[in-house]
């Protein structure tokens, strides 16, 4: 597809999504949402043929630059960072994350491991990295997000393959599953309140049935994804953080046990699902 054609299609997707978000008029809402879903699905098919038409590819590119450029107080690149398949091996690493890392003696997902390497290899201040790790609506994803997008893209086409050899990996899975059903906050919500049944929606937004393998396989491998409604890439941890916002919970720490364990659970349920990252979401 020509770049002009791509831009025109992209604008039409945005317009439909905006129309969907803005409409409250009787009779239009369902039509608009069907139309925008159809248009986004058409766009997804085109992404397969021409992956560079996804705006998230800018972050794949930026993430690769961040990975390979000497940065931080130690003026070092991340090329010696061990993502689980040995120092510097990026290809295929994301497909097996989260996993146990002996140097940290804990289970880490992509974001947690990036922070670890930025601190240990490049000398960045961990507390500063974790302070405001996610962009506001309309702003570009931060460095951690761009790096995660690059790393995920390097496993594109592979299947989600949690290893679950180490006892702490098995514990993370059990913790993630229990957390998925843990009710809390002022609204008594659990992940399962919205994501443990077939064909449900909030307003008109369809909800994935994340405790069911056939459904989880369709969506989990899409993250990190470009989110049209907030115009930036969101990592899986950012998406979970956003769910906690809706659950009226406080801001969960990036790379902490809860989002890592929930990611482990989602990856295990979705095991065998194909990685199509970065994906495209409403």
């Amino acid at each position, binding site marked *: 597809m020509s770049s002009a054609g791509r831009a025109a299609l992209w604008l039409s997707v945005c317009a439909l999504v905006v129309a969907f978000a803005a409409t409250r008029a009787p009779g239009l809402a369902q039509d608009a949402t069907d139309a925008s879903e159809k248009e986004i699905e058409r766009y997804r098919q085109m992404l397969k043929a021409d992956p560079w038409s996804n705006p998230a590819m800018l972050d794949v590119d930026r993430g690769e630059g961040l990975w390979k450029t000497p940065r931080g107080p130690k003026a070092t690149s991340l090329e010696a960072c061990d993502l689980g398949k040995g120092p510097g091996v990026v290809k295929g690493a994301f497909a097996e994350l989260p996993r146990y890392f002996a140097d940290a003696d804990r289970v880490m997902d992509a974001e947690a491991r990036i922070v670890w390497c930025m601190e240990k290899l490049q000398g960045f201040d961990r507390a500063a990295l974790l302070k405001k790790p996610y962009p506001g609506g309309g702003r570009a994803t931060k460095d951690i997000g761009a790096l995660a997008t690059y790393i995920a893209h390097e496993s594109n086409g592979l299947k989600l393959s949690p290893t679950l050899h180490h006892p702490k990996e098995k514990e993370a899975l059990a913790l993630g599953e229990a957390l998925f*059903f843990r009710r809390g906050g002022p609204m*008594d919500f659990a992940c399962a309140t919205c994501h443990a049944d077939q064909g449900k929606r909030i307003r008109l937004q369809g909800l994935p049935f994340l405790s069911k393998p056939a459904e989880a396989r369709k969506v989990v491998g899409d993250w990190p994804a470009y989110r049209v409604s907030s115009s930036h890439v969101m990592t899986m941890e950012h998406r979970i953080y956003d769910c906690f916002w809706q659950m*009226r919970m406080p*801001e969960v720490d990036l790379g902490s046990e809860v989002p890592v364990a929930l990611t482990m659970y989602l990856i295990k349920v979705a095991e065998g699902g194909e990685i199509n990252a970065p994906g495209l979401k409403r």
Partner: protein
Amino acid sequence: MPAIFLVALLTALLYAGPADAQAPAIDAARMEAAVKRSWTQASPEWQARLGQDETMVVCSEHRNSPPPAVADAILARERASIKYPADGKLMGDWKKGQKLAQSGYGGRFTDYPPRTENGGNCYACHQLSSNELSFGTLGPSLLEYGKIRKFSDADVKAVYDRIYNPQAAVACASMPRLGAGGHLSIEQIKDLVAYVMSPDSPVNK
């Protein structure tokens, strides 16, 4: 060996399955420790939201299908939480209720300091008026709810109770305990009751 024992043994082996086919259970104290460690940047006031009351604990443990004795204890405890207006009038203004039913505002970490009153966000999960097509399906449709029930006083009270604390009627219900949890005031709940139960409300047209 009698065949029945063989069957039992095989069944046990099959259910035990390969070690990684099923996640091992996690200790509740272990889970709560993880929760505490995962929100270190939240203020003490916000960290108060990380805890669970007894109802949340048992509903989580039983994945919202509590055994009968546990369910009875929940119903009794939650029933006792319901407070009523001093004048006994359970219906307010359906027009105000309609606005509350549309609004999802309140309680999220971006909602402070408050810019408007908390909403009930009913449409996130329920169909109510036939004029509003953007409704969720996590809860049952409430279309013509009052009309179908002939606007009876008993149902007015039941709706008030259901909004104030749904777990007084259904143990481990998915719906938030909007009154008992302090998200909505008694006045707001009366307005929502009117939106569901008033003959003038578009829900019943």
